């Protein structure tokens, strides 16, 4: 706050505190809410990540299981046909057996609707029997089939799974051949309509929008709930999941997130159909797969949002709790700065801030008390010596002013001829003389740290060694008296020039007196009572202008320092025995330096 700058251009002082307050407030709110927000975010992210992982894992496991179940079913379907074919290869080829074989073949067609055509080949590779649902039966054609894979492969490996082919370019078929266990049993080859696999595949429910399908070892679609796709002879070999299956098909996961043939994002799991080298795929649209996850993420997000809002509110609240007391303290300090000592700050937070505020209040009270004391001391100083004022202020007037008895040196002094002067002179002149007189004396009283006990017109009573103890009270008294005589002599010369005949006498005694408060409620004085005081007044009365009369006790104390006239025994009023008094002429040179 610059006083040099004109008030109009200077930034208004009140704007400064709110600015700093705002920064602390912002800092707290930002820090707190970002810490809490970050914690919540991290927690939410971790939670979502685990949720995502578990959810994906679960979905894929379910899908894989579905694919595996379908693969098992299809595998069983093929195995069953193989088993049925195996029965037809039990008999040896002998004459007359053809009719029986035809019945067996017809029975097989009846039991296995998927088999459209059954061909029986003898051990030499000659076609002996062909029974068909669609074409005319062929009996004992003796066509040479010995070079056909269905014969050679079946003989070599007992069973043969031909590639999938499409009758009329649309019906999926496969040749399945089984060789008999006997060497002369030959081979039974069946044309199997794979549309029956469709039933298996279409029964698999993968979620709501998911599907299962089967591709052969070359990646061609064999079965799909949408029959049209199969009938159109669709090639799936380029799909990532099919490539994955064909490439590293034995990897334990057998699942991936990819795209289906229409380019939709799907979660795909697959399982091999062991005997055929085919694959069953179960696909679930990603949208559907992650719908619950997304819901849950939304929920987490909402909780997160609420958490952050809560954190901000809490931060606002805490920052307020923090800043409001600080601001109160600031305002309190400002008030003290502005001079309003004893300003109090009300903070009820029950924490360190309240302790700080209490401390502040204590400090402020102390400040006020100290200021008041200083003021009091200032006031006292006008009447008392600064030392006395300090003592009274620091020890408390009450103890100081309690009645007590102490050995003191008492100085009494007054002017000679003052009564006559006061009667003849104008009051203004009297007051002017008194003023000069008191000023001269007061300066010396302060200098020698005497205690001004009272003024009585031109009479002045000064104590030493009370209420503040001092070393050599009598010596101080005498030294002061000598200087007083010099000072008043100087003034008297001046007054004489004005026509005022005024002199100055001093009496000094030393002895015990009782000091204490006298007076009544509303007006108390500090007063010394005792014969030593009376004696000082009497000695003063006896003293001629320029004389300093001291009693025995004082003389005893200051004898080495002063030169005195011969003592004279003086009879004083009210004192039965004459008192020996010494007039101090001057201080010895030794002491005068």
């Amino acid at each position: 706050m610059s006083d040099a700058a004109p008030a109009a251009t200077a930034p208004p002082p009140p704007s400064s505190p709110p600015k700093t307050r705002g920064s602390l407030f912002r800092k707290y709110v930002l820090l707190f809410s970002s810490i809490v927000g970050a914690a919540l975010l991290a927690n939410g992210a971790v939670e979502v990540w685990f949720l995502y992982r578990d959810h994906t894992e679960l979905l894929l496991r379910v899908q894989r299981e579905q694919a595996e179940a379908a693969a098992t079913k299809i595998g069983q379907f093929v195995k069953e046909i193989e088993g049925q074919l195996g029965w037809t290869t039990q008999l040896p080829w002998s004459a007359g057996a053809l009719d029986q074989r035809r019945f067996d073949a017809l029975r097989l067609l009846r039991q296995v609707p998927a088999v459209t055509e059954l061909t029986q080949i003898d051990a030499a590779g000659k076609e002996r029997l062909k029974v068909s649902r669609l074409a005319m039966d062929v009996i004992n054609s003796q066509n040479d089939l010995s070079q056909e894979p269905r014969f050679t492969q079946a003989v070599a490996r007992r069973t043969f799974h031909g590639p999938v082919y499409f009758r009329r370019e649309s019906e999926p078929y496969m040749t399945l051949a089984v060789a008999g266990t006997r060497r002369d049993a030959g081979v039974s080859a069946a044309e199997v309509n794979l549309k029956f696999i469709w039933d298996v595949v279409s029964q698999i429910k993968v979620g709501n929008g998911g599907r299962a399908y089967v591709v052969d070892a070359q990646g061609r679609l064999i079965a799909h709930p949408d029959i049209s796709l199969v009938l159109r002879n669709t090639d799936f070999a380029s799909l990532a999941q099919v490539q994955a299956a064909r490439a590293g098909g034995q990897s334990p996961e057998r699942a991936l997130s990819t795209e289906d043939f229409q380019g939709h994002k799907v979660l795909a799991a697959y399982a091999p159909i062991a005997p055929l080298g085919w694959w069953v795929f179960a696909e679930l649209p990603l949208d559907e797969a992650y719908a619950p996850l997304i819901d849950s993420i939304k929920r987490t997000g909402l909780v997160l949002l609420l958490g952050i809002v809560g954190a901000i509110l809490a931060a606002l609240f805490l920052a307020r709790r923090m800043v409001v007391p600080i601001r109160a303290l600031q305002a309190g300090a400002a008030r003290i700065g502005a001079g309003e000592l004893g300003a109090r700050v009300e903070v009820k937070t029950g924490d360190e801030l309240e302790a700080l505020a209490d401390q502040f209040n204590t400090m402020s009270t102390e400040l006020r008390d100290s200021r008041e004391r200083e003021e009091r001391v200032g006031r006292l100083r006008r009447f008392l010596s600064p030392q006395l004022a300090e003592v009274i202020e620091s020890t408390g007037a009450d103890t100081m002013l309690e009645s007590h008895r102490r050995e003191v040196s008492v100085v009494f002094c007054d002017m000679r001829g003052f009564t006559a002067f006061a009667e003849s002179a104008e009051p203004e002149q009297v007051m002017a003389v008194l003023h000069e007189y008191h000023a001269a004396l007061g300066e010396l009283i302060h200098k020698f740290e005497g205690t001004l006990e009272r003024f009585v017109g031109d009479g002045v009573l000064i104590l030493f060694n009370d209420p503040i103890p001092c070393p050599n009270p009598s010596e101080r008294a005498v030294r002061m008296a000598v200087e007083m005589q010099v000072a008043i002599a100087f003034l008297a010369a001046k007054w004489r020039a004005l026509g005022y005949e005024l002199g100055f006498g001093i009496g000094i005694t030393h002895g015990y007196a009782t000091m204490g408060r006298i007076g009544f409620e509303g007006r108390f004085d500090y007063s010394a009572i005792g014969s030593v005081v009376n004696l000082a007044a009497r000695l003063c009365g006896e003293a001629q202008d320029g004389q300093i009369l001291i009693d025995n006790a004082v003389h005893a104390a200051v004898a080495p320092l002063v030169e005195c006239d011969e003592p004279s025994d003086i009879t004083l009023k009210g004192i039965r025995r004459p008192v020996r008094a010494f007039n101090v002429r001057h201080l010895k040179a030794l002491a005068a330096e």
Partner: protein
Amino acid sequence: MLDTASAGSNAANIEAFRKGLRELGYVEGQNLILDYRAVTDGRVELFRDLASELVGLKVELIVTRSTAAILAVQDASATVPIVMAAQAEPLGSGVIANLAHPGGNITGLSSFALDLVPKLVELLREIVPRMTRVAVLTNMGNPVSVTRWDLAQTAARSLGIEAQLCDVRSSRDIGPSFEAATGQGARGIITGNDPVLRSNLRTIIDLAAIHKLPTIHSDREFVEMGGLISYGPNYPLLYFRAASFVDKIFKGARPADLPIEQPTAVEMVINLRTAKALGLTIPQSVLLRADEVIE
């Protein structure tokens, strides 16, 4: 629907079709209106008028059965999608380009009944081993019948028997056909299921009984009426599947992209009562193939 038989005589197929639609969530009167039109007495020339009528009703799709019906619809509108319920020979008759990609605005199912014609010859021969001549009752006015006749002739020849063509263009031709068949020593009859024949089913069965001629058909309805044996696709199943094509097209699929489906099963029905009346013993090899036996 534009069919070859009256709603009454085609009830099994229509009901199967309705069932298919119901399973796909269609409810008649709520989200589906089904109009049925059929020619009677094999008057296929009437398909033209009926097709125009249906197109005039602004139908969204027409389910048909016969080649003549398809041609009539294609003449009446180039845009209304056609679903074939059981087309005998869609490739040979030229209504589609390719089974996998039919092209145009037509798709559906093929019965491939003609494929089985040699099998019919074989089965009839097996039941009547001494047969040397077989009569083929078919409407040569229907384009698919030419193929039917060719296949039958070839199959008969391979079995060492004669085939005799009895061209039935209308109900008036049926009586004379039987006269001709018995007159020339035919011991069995193979019938087509052309609209003309289907609408004269009763007459054909009665005449076969009178002439003591065993008959074989593609369609089990003949056997249920008293024919001896049928071997062919399960037609209600085809009609049931046709509903899925309707559904796909309603949901926006282009018919040209929907491959033609073929029947997955062939069923044989034998009427043992008829066999008994004819004094025939059905051999074990035939009985083994039978899916249903009417006693």
